[in-house]
């Protein structure tokens, strides 16, 4: 499974756009890139998943360059409630019917008023 590297922490003011970049240099052809969010005392929550180029949903955008060795999660106009830990995960279907998620240390985002 590909190893991911992301900032340990970030601070942002309310209303700003936040971009969290994750590097995954040894990503494999079949790997997808997925981001999860975790609030204290809660389980991780799926945010977005992509394979290449750009993916957008109602909460975030995911930018993946052509070489796929990195990805950037973009959170538009963050609010205090976006304060959480954000995990970048890279993984693939194992072919044995399982898809285990491999979590790194994540990026702790603190939104300040």
């Amino acid at each position, binding site marked *: 499974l590909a190893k991911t590297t992301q900032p340990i922490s970030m601070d942002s003011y309310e209303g700003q756009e936040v971009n969290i970049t994750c590097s995954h240099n040894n990503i494999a052809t079949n790997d997808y890139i997925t981001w999860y969010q975790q609030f204290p005392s809660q*389980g991780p929550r799926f945010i977005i998943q992509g394979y290449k180029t750009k993916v957008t949903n109602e909460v975030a955008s995911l930018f993946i360059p052509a070489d796929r060795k990195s990805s950037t999660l973009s959170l538009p106009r963050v609010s205090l409630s976006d304060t959480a830990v954000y995990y970048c995960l890279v993984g693939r279907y194992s072919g044995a019917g399982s898809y*285990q998620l491999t*979590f790194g240390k994540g990026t702790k985002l603190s939104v300040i008023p």
Partner: protein
Amino acid sequence: EAGVTQFPSHSVIEKGQTVTLRCDPISGHDNLYWYRRVMGKEIKFLLHFVKESKQDESGMPNNRFLAERTGGTYSTLKVQPAELEDSGVYFCASSQGTPGLGGFYNEQFFGPGTRLTVL
């Protein structure tokens, strides 16, 4: 729609005792996963059920851990006997469908976790 629920939310036991954690997945989800985060470490995969069958138990740390999913609904994770290093937060997640070939997988919905403290 109810999410993934876990019971208890917190358990404190002494070393050598037995503890059983329970997870109720989202109704209709065939896939059920157990993960855990021990103190200061990352969240780690333990095992994956598809209905009542263990699809992948490569993350189970040792034979003191026993997971079951009788009837393919809720699951239990028993630790017997518990050791100090078992302390941490145990998460359960569920997903529907079958992980697809080519890398795409179905979103996993996580429960709030059970915090286990072994004294």
